[in-house]
């Protein structure tokens, strides 16, 4: 082993000192992002999601044919069980009306992504607002606050008891069947989940010493909630939002499958496509496989990223 000379040691020390002086401190968010980047699970999930989003954004422009044009109508005879599978020019084959399945998949991705994001956003925003009010009331509101929190939570419990399907059916009865109905139904079901999660997380932080410290400093309550408690309570909500995207897409597909989705045949959506394919499953299983695999892979991407984020945001959870 080479023995470092005195001058070498001094130099090394100087380098180390320089490094420590220039370091600008790593926030927990940045550390979490660093951990996320080094996680294989996160990379795989992110690649899938990016690919999916790309398809959703540029897909309609890449589609070789119109998704609604029944160009090959005279080649498909569903009544006789005669379908056209994958072939040159129609890579995924044709559907029961003679439309190009590949084009429909590409265009349908946009609707699927839209449903997932909008439904999750509805749940996230509403749940977040309810959660933050409830959490803030419970932690800093004293006796009155605890009462307010208690009332809100009973209301949330009621919402939790509502099955999404029932909700979707009743919303559809009022608003008519459409993609909006599906998005609202899936979104509303997520509200109590986010509200409870944020409230619970805030309650846990509310007893932390640094909240007490902020109070003793004389920081205003609103600021304590927004700049002290909230940033520390966000991790589980972020993770849940990512995971919800996956469930929202699957739930939306399920609702579309049941015929509550967009009835307009011109606008393809994976869930609707799956529902249509079901009738012809014994003759042309490929028709169902493409949208199903699409949904599964997308959901998998969000789930992988969500799980990786959970670990990155809270390394303690790692077994």
């Amino acid at each position, binding site marked *: 082993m080479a023995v470092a000379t005195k001058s070498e040691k001094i130099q090394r020390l100087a380098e180390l000192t320089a490094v420590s*002086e220039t370091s600008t401190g790593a*926030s927990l968010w940045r550390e979490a992002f660093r951990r996320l980047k080094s996680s294989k699970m996160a990379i795989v999930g992110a690649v899938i999601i990016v690919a999916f989003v790309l398809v959703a954004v540029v897909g309609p422009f890449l589609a070789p044919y119109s998704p609604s044009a029944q160009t090959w109508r005279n080649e498909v005879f569903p009544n006789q069980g005669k379908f056209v599978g994958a072939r040159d020019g129609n890579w995924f084959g044709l559907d029961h009306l003679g439309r190009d399945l590949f084009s429909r998949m590409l265009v349908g991705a946009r609707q699927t992504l839209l449903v997932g994001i909008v439904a999750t956003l509805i749940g996230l925003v509403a749940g977040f607002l309810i959660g933050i009010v409830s959490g803030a009331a419970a932690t800093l509101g004293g006796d009155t606050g605890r009462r307010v929190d208690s009332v809100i939570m009973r209301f949330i419990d009621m919402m939790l008891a509502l099955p999404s399907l029932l909700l979707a059916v009743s919303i559809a009865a009022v608003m008519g069947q459409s993609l909006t109905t599906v998005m609202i139904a899936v979104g509303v079901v997520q509200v109590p989940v986010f509200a409870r999660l944020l409230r619970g997380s805030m309650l846990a932080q509310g007893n932390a010493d640094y909240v007490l410290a902020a109070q003793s*400093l004389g920081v205003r309550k609103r*600021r304590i909630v927004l700049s002290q408690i909230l940033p*520390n309570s966000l991790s589980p909500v972020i993770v849940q939002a990512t995971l919800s995207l996956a469930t929202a897409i699957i739930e939306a597909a399920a609702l579309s499958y049941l015929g509550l989705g967009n009835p307009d045949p011109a606008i393809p959506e994976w869930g609707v496509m799956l529902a249509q394919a079901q009738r012809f499953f014994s003759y042309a299983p490929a028709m169902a496989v493409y949208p199903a695999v699409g949904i599964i892979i997308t959901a998998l991407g969000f789930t992988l990223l969500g799980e990786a984020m959970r670990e990155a945001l809270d390394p303690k959870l790692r077994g």
Partner: protein
Amino acid sequence: MSLLELDGVKVHFPIKKGVLVDRTVGHVYAVDGVSLKVEAGETYGLVGESGCGKTTLGRSVLRLVDITEGSVVLDGTDLAKLPGEEMRRFRRRLQMVFQDPLGSLNPRQNIESILSEGMIAHGIGKDQEERREKIKAILDKVGLPSNALARYPHEFSGGQRQRIGIARALVLEPDVIICDEPVSALDVSVQAQVINLLEELQQELGLTYLVIAHDLAVVRHISDTIGVMYLGSLVEEAPSDALYAEPKHPYTKALMSAVPVPDPEVEDKRERILLTGDLPSPANPPSGCRFHTRCPWAQAERCATERPQLRDVGGGHRVACHYAEDIASGKLSLNQGEIVSATREGVDDNPETDTPAEDTPAEDAPAKVPAQAEKPAKDAPVAEADKASDADKASEAEKPAKADKPAQAEKPADGDKASEAEKPAKAEKPAEAEKVTKADEAV
């Protein structure tokens, strides 16, 4: 007039039960009538065991918990009656340093942001630039480099974090700083640094401290006056030196007797007052004197019925005990608990006059069951000679009162067994015991 005066402060937490409508089924008497005065520029130390209410008292001064009754007067203003917003502004003059240095710093804020928080809340400094200058000056004062500004709490060591906590209190230029166990979470060497820092700052800035601690050595070092708390109230209050030289309250005596002395000669002669029983629940405190259930000198009638008030027994020494003088003069004798030698392990320069080695049977590792102490040593024959040599000491081990004092039973001459027993510090003892026995044989 004193800078900070507490008068009959009570903090009672309701115990609530009920599904829909909360019913109050009782109270936890966390702080039950504490009156004390802190002079400007002085340090008031508050000691007591865990659960005696000292932290709650500290928090009640800052109104971090609601005061049920009594007044906290800072410089003529009764904080207990201040409405919310005025109290918030008043907090500038009254700051707190917390026990857990990491837990009391928001992990998502960098140091600059943490230290700015209070200044923003009180409108100190026109812009961030001005605040940053002030923060840098304070950081320098508490001995932190100015490049700490952009860093986050988890990037610092324990001692540094506590310095940040102190800096956070200092930026608001408070009159009084309440230090809640400021050093108990730190290494001993770092404790000294932080305590010295607190003292330097006190001299430089003329600060007044209310220090809450359970470490008697720390409190003695920094306090001018010390108050001893037991179950929500003060039992004794005296100038630091007087309290340590001559504790008057039985509880203080017991507390002081538990402090080891770093001098082997003195340590060997040191005697411990062993209290019986556990700390009673603050939800259901004993009648009369709160301490009478555990007091070795408790008298039949008066102690259980009449609650003693703090009274001056001369020289600013205040005691809440009916019989303080009688105990001091030796007129009263023990009627429960006992006084034992503090060093029972029989490790001494002169083994022949030493306390015996009583062996805990190896099969029963926890030294809690009294019967164990009486059982003969089965698999530690080396120590037996020792044991037989001192009959009257051995008899001590038979008293059931010792049941919960693992310190008394000598650990078996076997590393494994010793480590199973409750006090890890004893692990080193077996080897020594063996040495002693060998010396015996040589004699």
